[in-house]
């Protein structure tokens, strides 16, 4: 066979394969883009497990709304047991398949009653009497009573998994008063306890489906929420379908398919190719900007409540010197980071309490301004540094936890600090687990971290960072008895105005001492096809799949 023959043979083979593929592909007889996209949707609808609903037949007139929505994420579901699940994405799934005594009104940070009809707070906030709805049922149709809720909460305490502190730190005991009434006695009054009662750790789960004292990580029995899990292949796909026993309004879309991607760019391409309807967490800033220009795609922006910050370990020299920390806080150029690294997809932040949350004050901006090199120089001089005797800073970051942008964030912090001419920064990095361990041991002088809230309250943004002993995970970098007292008072006070004053005071002290310096607050972005509606983004940061729907046939 000559070279030419071979060439022809290869071309023929490729063409043959392509034709073969096109010929056997289901419904791939037409060639327009629009038709293919719609065919793809049908493929998913027809084959995602269950037979089509009885009310739907192939000859039925075109529906207004799609039966299935496909959502793509780069996150992962870690553990389908509320006693051990403690990460944001898994909690999002739980918020779609379950519900706690309290929940957030979509689009707000307002707490409303969830699986309870009514509740009473007694003994100055120490006792909660929860009256459960009488029509509450698990996804398998069995009734959910106060006994089940007690069993679920006690189980969390018994198993002592990662989120067990939500129960162990607060609850003294639980008592069933009758079939629909549960009494929770706290160790002491907690001002924000209703917010704690909204976390998945307090969701009721069916005792017949979960082992009493063991973690059941791959359990798909679900809870009492709008959806139930019908399929789960770890790291690949999660399928949710309407829970027919949910007491509330039925989900707008009967079936939600969640596809797990490993790469943010692939996630974006999957949206563009029509494989998914919604691209959720987490798209790259460049992809978000690009998608905003696409005619068939909508990008929805929302307020986020996750924050990023710099931690100075005040036990390590020279960061034990307040003036050094203040100087570095003053020189920080948050706007440059927000605009150059994140292309405006994050907002500069001047307090640990995020913007939009009650009690927030721009404490750092008021005290230091923004990228205030002159003030930084003055403070550095006072601390004994000069152009010839530079302050040496070892700045650590981790490349394996906060995304590809982290190295750039560190580079811009270095750039801002070195603009003073009196600081020399060495940037170092370590893998996530190494980074965490070295930080916890108090060996890293300056580190970059991020925080997703456990519950929506200023307490969650201040106490774990600044209260003595609570910041062990940061290597106990800071302790201030005066601040401890303020935070403790704010935690137990039931007077909202008093709490607000206390938290404002705490933020002033934080800015003055500057052991932790806020950098930015993230925004939320969802990109979706233009015909997808009902996406609600709020600072709770959990996407409610049951509100989303897709128009078809219009």
């Amino acid at each position: 066979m000559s070279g030419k023959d071979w060439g022809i043979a290869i071309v023929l083979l490729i063409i043959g394969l392509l034709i073969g593929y096109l010929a056997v592909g289901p419904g791939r007889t037409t060639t327009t883009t629009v038709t293919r996209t719609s065919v793809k949707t049908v493929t998913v609808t027809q084959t995602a497990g269950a037979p089509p609903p009885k009310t739907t037949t192939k000859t039925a007139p075109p529906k207004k709304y799609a039966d299935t929505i496909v959502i793509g994420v780069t996150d992962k579901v870690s553990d389908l047991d509320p006693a051990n699940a403690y990460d944001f994405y898994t909690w999002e799934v739980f918020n779609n398949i379950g519900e706690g005594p309290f929940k957030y009104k979509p689009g707000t940070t307002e707490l409303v009653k969830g699986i309870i009809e009514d509740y009473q707070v007694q003994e100055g906030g120490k006792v909660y009497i929860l009256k459960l709805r009488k029509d509450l049922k698990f996804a398998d149709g069995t009734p959910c009573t106060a006994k089940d809720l007690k069993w679920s909460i006690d189980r969390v305490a018994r198993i002592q998994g990662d989120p067990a502190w939500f129960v162990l730190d607060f609850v003294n005991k639980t008592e069933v008063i009758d079939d629909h009434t549960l009494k929770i006695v706290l160790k002491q009054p907690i001002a924000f306890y209703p917010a704690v009662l909204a976390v998945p750790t307090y969701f009721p789960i069916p005792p017949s489906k979960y082992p009493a004292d063991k973690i059941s990580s791959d359990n798909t029995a679900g809870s009492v929420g709008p959806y139930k899990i019908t399929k789960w292949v770890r790291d690949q796909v999660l399928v949710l379908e309407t829970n027919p026993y949910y007491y509330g309004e039925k989900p707008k879309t009967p079936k939600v398919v969640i596809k797990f991607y490993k790469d943010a760019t692939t996630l974006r391409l999957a949206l563009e190719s029509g494989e998914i309807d919604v691209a959720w967490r987490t798209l790259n800033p460049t992809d978000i900007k690009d998608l905003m220009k696409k005619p068939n795609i909508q990008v929805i922006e929302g307020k986020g409540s996750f924050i990023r910050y710099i931690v100075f370990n005040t036990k390590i020299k020279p960061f034990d010197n307040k003036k050094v920390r203040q100087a570095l806080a003053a020189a920080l150029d948050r706007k440059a980071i927000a605009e150059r690294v994140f292309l405006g997809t994050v907002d500069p932040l001047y307090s640990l309490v995020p913007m939009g949350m009650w009690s927030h004050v721009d404490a750092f901006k008021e005290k230091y301004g923004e990228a205030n090199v002159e003030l930084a120089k003055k403070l550095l001089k006072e601390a004994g540094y000069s152009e010839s005797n530079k302050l040496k800073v070892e700045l650590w970051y981790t490349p394996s936890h906060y995304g590809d942008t982290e190295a750039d964030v560190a580079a811009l912090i270095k750039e801002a600090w070195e603009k003073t001419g009196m600081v020399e920064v060495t940037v170092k990095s370590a893998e996530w687990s190494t980074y965490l361990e070295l930080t916890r041991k108090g060996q890293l002088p300056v580190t970059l971290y991020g925080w997703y809230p456990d519950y929506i309250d200023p307490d969650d943004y201040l106490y774990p960072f600044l209260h003595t002993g609570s910041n062990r995970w940061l290597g106990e970098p800071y302790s201030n008895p005066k601040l401890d007292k303020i935070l403790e008072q704010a935690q137990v006070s039931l007077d909202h105005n008093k709490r607000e004053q206390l938290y404002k005071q705490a933020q002033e002290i934080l800015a003055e001492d500057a052991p932790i310096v806020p950098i930015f607050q993230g925004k939320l972005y969802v990109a979706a096809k233009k015909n997808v509606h009902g996406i609600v983004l709020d600072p709770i940061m959990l996407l409610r799949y049951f509100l989303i729907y897709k128009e078809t046939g219009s």
Partner: protein
Amino acid sequence: MSLRAYVITRILMTIPMILILLTLVFLVMRVLPGNPVIAIVGMKASPQYIKKLEHQLGLDKPLWLQYVDYLGNLLRGDLGRSMIWGKRPVIQEIMDHFPATLELTIGGFLVSVILGLATGMVAGIRSGGKLDASMRIYSITVYSLFIPLLGMMLQLVFGVWLHLLPVGGRIDPGLEPPAITGLYVLDSLLALKLDSLTSALAHLVLPSFTLGLVLSGIYTRLVRSSLMEVLGQDFIRACKARGLPGRAILFRHALKNALIPILTMMGLQFALLLAGAVLTETTFSWPGMGTFLVERITYRDFTTIQGSIVFYALFVALVSLVVDLVYAYVDPRIRY
């Protein structure tokens, strides 16, 4: 040495190999800072809670005792349980991810061998000509392609623009065939599920082609040089003198002889690919061993990493044994 004795010796040789590998991995993982408990517990976890988890996982025991325990379990065929998320049995984790890797390996391998053999043969037969030069340029060009970039371009063209092929994943949700081997293409065939087969093949095309195209460059050069060497030998001239047709000379005599060094390369490459083509897997969200292991190394999931290493060592030993046996088939001069 008989063939049986050879095979037994080879199998016995894998035991010290695995032991050395395992010991190294065991020590390196534990010497490095970072442990699985700290990597996964919430930031608010108390030191007592961390200690409790370390105790549960046996991480508070002396190193030698952990090692002895692990070897003991291994001898009983127990690879242990993962130390993080879900704490699932390691063997189950491997079985969940390995078939995906094997499927991609076979796909990428076939593409690379077919393209490499075809281009290499063209170059070898037409050595010195324009075709040869083109094939050599092809070889260098494809080998220097960066997988994520090539992958992304293919995703853009075939996924976004032409809507012909999916950009990520192994199969459309809901179309998974009944699990028999874990290889979706094969399982779909066995279950006679045409829609599953189509979907699995469609998902396999882009990652296999990306991986295969890049690797085919090596074969082009190898086949070319090997073939040129064989074509210049006396027995080929003798064949020609006896009036054998060119095609018979090439396929029956020249290629068979030229294949020996290529087989070695194939064996090595197949084994290498089994460890997971991390870049390809990431680009195409392919749920294989490569990305899985990288993630588990980041989180210091000791047992999963150790278990996967043992599994791989066994598999690679098996592949290299098969390659050695194939030598004997291809080249009758080789006897064991």
